[in-house]
Each structure stands twice: as C-alpha cells, then as structure tokens.
C-alpha cells in the first residue's frame, strides 16, 4: 500500500491523525486483501462549511488514482449527492434526478440515452459495467458504490460549533457494493481516530442522507457506526 497524497492545512494537528489512519487502512488492506483489486484506492477528505478541503489523504495499491475513483469523487462533489451507488430503483432514480437537475449538465444523445436507461425501472438490473463506463467517459461521473459524504457538527471544549463534511471514496473491491462497506469502515476508523486525537472535541454525525441508500443503510447497521 502507498500513500498517494497527503495535504493538510494544519500539519502539526493532522499528521498524527494521518499516521494513525494510514496504519488502520494498511491493516484493513492486509486483512481483506482477497477482496481488493490491484488498483484499489481510498480517498479521505475533511472539508469546512464552505467546501474548502483542509485535510486530504489518498492511499492505494499503485501510485495513481484510478479513473473510477475520480468518477466517484466527481459525483460526490455534487451538493445533493451523499452516496454514489445505485442498487435499486429508488436510489437510481434519485441520483439520475440530481444529475439531470444540474444546470450545466449538457446531455449528449448517447449518454442521455444511458441516463434514460438508468432511469427506466426495467434496466436497473440489466445495465452492465460497459454502460457505467460510457457515463464515466462522457461525464466523468462513476455511478457505482464506494463514495460517501457525511455532514457533521464539531463541538469544541468551549462549546463553539463548526460544520464539517467528511467525504470518503473507496474503489477497488471485487464486489461493487462492498466498496460502500469499505468507505464506511474507513469512516468508522476515522471516527475513532478523531475521537482519540481531539479529546476536547465531540462530533455529531448526520447519517440520515446516507441511509436513504439501501446498501449504505444495511452496512451502517452492520458496521456499528454511531451518529455521535
């Protein structure tokens, strides 16, 4: 495993956090190596209320980020997207609606058809990887599982609050839905690490938007991730 990128505004504060995170993800990658591909990537970002990233770490098997991981990052950058997977008709519909709503989203004939296929109830289960790849090529968005975005409120020792956004993308698990599991598992690890390093601060996480995605909801219950 390699650290592909690490950037932080306050390195004195975040370097020990990053070191712990790297160790935890290494352990995870070793433990579950049978399920990871040779190009797996994990990106962790913490942003402020104005969407400025003040902590970012990227890890992976290789020294570059896969196209699919970038596609999930792009999809998560849309404000109303909290989860990238489309595993049932409702999540597919919601995601397509969000994308179609985007003002500057020019729809060409080809990819417009693909999105219509996605929207069509009968096609959800039949759409193969090639269709997702076409959307990725055309728009730079990758619709498959592994991207999660969680809003949280940080309350410091003096009672002041700050809104933060934690965004995690995982790509490179053989079974596509498990990418969401690993993104959530990394989030759980990050929760523990932040709690350990920021003793005076407490966090309240809003998992509700994520729970609208059935797969994410199932994994949230199974990973034991807490709201606060």
């Amino acid at each position: 495993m390699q650290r592909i990128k690490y950037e932080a505004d306050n390195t004195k504060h975040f370097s020990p956090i990053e070191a712990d995170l790297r160790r935890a993800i290494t352990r995870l990658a070793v433990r579950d190596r049978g399920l990871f591909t040779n190009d797996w990537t994990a990106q962790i970002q913490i942003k402020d209320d104005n969407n400025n990233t003040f902590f970012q770490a990227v890890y992976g098997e290789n020294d570059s980020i896969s196209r699919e991981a970038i596609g999930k990052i792009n999809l998560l950058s849309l404000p109303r997207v909290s989860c990238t997977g489309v595993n049932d008709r409702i999540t597919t519909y919601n995601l397509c609606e969000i994308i179609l709503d985007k003002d500057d989203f020019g729809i060409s004939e080809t990819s417009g058809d693909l999105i219509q296929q996605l929207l069509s109830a009968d096609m959800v289960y039949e759409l193969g990887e090639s269709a997702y790849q076409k959307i990725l090529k055309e728009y730079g968005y990758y619709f498959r599982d592994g991207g999660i975005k969680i809003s949280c409120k940080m309350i410091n020792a003096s009672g002041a609050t700050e809104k933060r956004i934690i965004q995690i993308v995982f790509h490179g698990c053989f079974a596509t839905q498990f990418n969401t599991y690993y993104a959530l598992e990394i989030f759980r690890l990050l929760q523990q690490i932040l709690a350990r390093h920021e003793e005076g601060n407490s966090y309240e996480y809003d998992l509700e938007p994520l729970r609208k995605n059935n797969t994410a909801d199932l994994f949230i219950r199974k990973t034991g991730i807490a709201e606060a």
Partner: protein
Amino acid sequence: MKVTYYQNDIDPSGDQNSQSPLLLKIAELTDQYGMQLPDGWRNAIRIRKLEDDNPHNVFALDVESDIGGGEYANTKLSMLEQFPELYYTGEHNTVKFAILLDKRFAPDSTIGRLNQELRAARTTAQVNPTIWEELQRKYRVTHWYGGIRIPMRITNACWSTNTRRGQESWDTHTDSYEILLAFSGAKEWMDVYIALQIFKELSHNLPGDRKHSRVSYSLTELYMDPLINFHLRNMGTLIPRKELSYATNQV
C-alpha cells in the same frame, strides 16, 4: 409469501406452523429488503441425513414471494445436489466453471460447445446470456452465488443401560447431516447475505426436540470464498466481527 413445498421427517408431528420463527424471519428479511427484490424471490432449504449408502432429505421447505420470482433458487439447490464437492454456488472464473462441468457431465456436442464458449470468455459478464440460460435449462447449473452447503453434526444424549456393565449411564450418538440452502431474487451479494441470515435463523430453530442434543456446524469451506467470508466476518451473520478464525464454528 407462500410455502410451496414442506417435508418434515425430523419432527413428523410438526406442521408448517412449527416453522413459524423461520418463516417469520424469511418474511421479515424479504420485507426489509423488498426494494432489492422487485421481481420476487424464492428460498429453498433441505436438510439431508448423510447415511453411508443413502443420503436423504429429512426436512425440506420451499418458500416464494406472492408474485413468484427467484427462479435461480432451485438451480442453485440442484447445483449443490449435483456437485457434492461444492460448498457454495458462485464462480466468476469461467474456465474454472468449464472444468467443473467437464468433470460432471459426459462430453457431448452440447456441453462441448457451451464449454468452448465459457473458456473463450474472460469473465462471466462476457458470456452470452443465452449460454447461461441453456446451462440452467439443460444441466441445472448456474454461476450465481446464493446457494450454500453447511455440514452439520447432531449428537444426541440419552439415558440408557450399558449392556456390557449392566449399569445405567448417559449414552451419546452422533449423526451427520448437511443443510442445503439457496436464495434467489436480489443481486448475488444480497442473495448470499439473505441466505446466511436464513441459515442463522434455521440454526436457532432447528426442527425437532433439541433438549438433549448438541449441534455443530462446519463453516470452514464457506470461509474459503472471499465473498462469503466477507459476509461471515463483517455482516454479523454468525460470529463476532473481531473473530478471524477459519476454524469450525459452533453457532
């Protein structure tokens, strides 16, 4: 949800209602994940007693949604019945799948042609869907996950007279069984999840009187597959998450 087949030789006096905890669990799971089962589902369970010459079903339960669906459940079950060496259905490597068919079926022109197609493809997704349909129809085999085989041993204790010593004592007797369980209707990873959850419930409500029995299950072979291993370790299916042992588990 409807029961389409029921057989209970373990507890002949027990009717379908005696399986209500299991049926309720199946109803709960399929209701909870109904969104991922839009075209219906089917679940098939068999418990086979493994006697030397005559392995036979002692318990069978087929359940399906009101709208039917899940047609692969029976194929998955049939695959486990046809291939005693398999502990689960599911194979993404088409060459391995072709080798499996070679071993089981006499070479004829049909299987030869299908095998050729399988060997030419690199992944299951590259195989023409008509090939999978033909394999399902003619040979009752499938590459989909969702069927599991769990060896089971039941040790019964009874108070009996020892004929040699003429004393009364506890005597034990162990029988070998296997549970075959298949679920179909969702995506394959979800089929595995639901199948394992149903097994968990079945293990807690095994038919028959268990007051003087000890039941153990071997999950060793299931742990060998990464996808099923994931569910067993991470999805609260059977054992605590921290437990990474590959050893036999007792539920």
